């Protein structure tokens, strides 16, 4: 069977290629991996500034920082060797990353009872995050469009009780979706600049690739 099938042009990017694109994107624009409030700015690291969570009685609000490692993608069929808690089915993809959440814990008194004069003490945890989703497309005009990714579910292993896991998964799904939304792959990249592609079909996930079909 031909690559172009019923159309005249085809472009396919293997998951290894998409991972290189992710690496290129987040290396060039690292601020999309780290989000920090003014009280928890990371030293010598580009970041995106976010406001503290306002709460009555907490001076300056709740400070926090969220940092992701560069995500990696796995297109169907599943290449995780069974390690994915959200195995991908037909047309689906996994995104995997590690997130470090830091909260500025505001303490007035320490464990010995000493007055801390209101000090923010950062405390952190790191979590392995698995997400499952599908590709999206934004099509502007013949030859002009972008492939992106949307996440339907997130799984974090080993948080109890389950209700806490659900809350954290929800928060991380929202945050990770917002991060991934910045990663756009123009059609021109999917074709490596070989030709213009007027989209007819796709994007489709198959054979460890994201595929688009169209006419030149």
């Amino acid at each position, binding site marked *: 069977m*031909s*690559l172009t099938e019923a159309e*005249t*042009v085809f*472009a396919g990017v*293997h998951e290894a290629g998409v991972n*290189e694109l992710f690496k290129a994107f987040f290396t060039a624009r690292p601020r999309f991996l780290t989000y920090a409030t003014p009280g928890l700015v990371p030293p010598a690291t580009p970041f995106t500034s976010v406001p503290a969570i306002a709460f009555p009685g907490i001076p300056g609000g709740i400070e926090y920082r969220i940092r992701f490692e560069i995500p990696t993608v796995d297109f169907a069929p599943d290449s995780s060797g069974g390690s994915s808690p959200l195995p991908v089915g037909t047309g689906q993809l996994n995104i995997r990353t590690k997130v470090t959440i830091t909260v500025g814990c505001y303490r007035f008194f320490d464990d010995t009872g000493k007055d801390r004069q209101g000090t923010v003490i950062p405390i952190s945890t790191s979590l392995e995050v698995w997400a499952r989703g599908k590709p999206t497309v934004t099509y502007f005009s013949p030859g002009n469009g972008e492939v992106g990714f949307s996440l339907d579910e997130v799984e974090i292993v080993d948080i109890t009780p389950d209700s806490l896991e659900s809350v954290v998964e929800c928060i991380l799904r929202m945050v990770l979706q917002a991060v991934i939304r910045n990663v756009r792959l123009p059609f021109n990249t*999917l*074709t490596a600049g070989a030709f213009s592609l007027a989209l007819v079909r796709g994007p489709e996930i198959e054979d460890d690739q994201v595929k688009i079909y169209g006419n030149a």
Partner: protein
Amino acid sequence: MPDIIAAADETAASNLIHAAETTLGTLTKSGSGSLGPFTAAWFASASFSGGMVDLIAPNVVRIANCQLNYSLGFNFSFDLSSILPDFCLPQICIPIPFDGKLCTPKICVNWPTITIPVSNSGVINFTADFSLNVHLSGSDWLIDIVVVGIPFLQIGPAAAAILAAIGLAASLALLAVPFIGPFLAAAVVGITAAIGIAGVTGLLGPILTPFVSGLTFTVYKQPKLFQVLPPALPDPAVNINLDAITAVVASSNEDELVISVDISA
């Protein structure tokens, strides 16, 4: 498995190749050559267009009836005394008022050497196989299709048209020669006969053949450092490296031009 695979069927490949023909633009050459018994200084330009594309595995692109659009200008010098007879105005005697009569001497006409400028444009169709050639040129990746051998050019019809153009140009040039009037038609015939179709073919072949010998169309050109996303303040551009590229013609239920690319961040 390559990181990126881009494939085009014969319809899309045709578009690519026709665009490459346009990108090649107009080529020009000049020189001098034999036009029958004469030497002609010439200037020629050529461009390419059209043709039906046939992809042939593993690496051949055949273009059938590709059009070579040529424009040719040349001039040559012709000594009219070689084809026109010696001609003299006879002595003329007439009576004049203040003398009996006055007689002019016989005046023999000088047939000059004239320069005849000729221009002609036309189209010659040819069919040729091209092979795929992927290579780095400086910091750019190129995929070229390079003609195999020297395509045969059907020059005959063009030669006939050019011989007709020579006749027309000769007529125009001869009009300025004094006393040519009664001899003009015969002079044009004499000039075109001296050159003949063979003379024009002998000039045209060496002019046009170099345009197709080594003919190369570039169907892909991208920098090794490929921009994925442009800068968007405050963020810089996002680039990837095109580390390796291959291009083949793959044959399954249809023939396709397949470009495979390995990339790195």
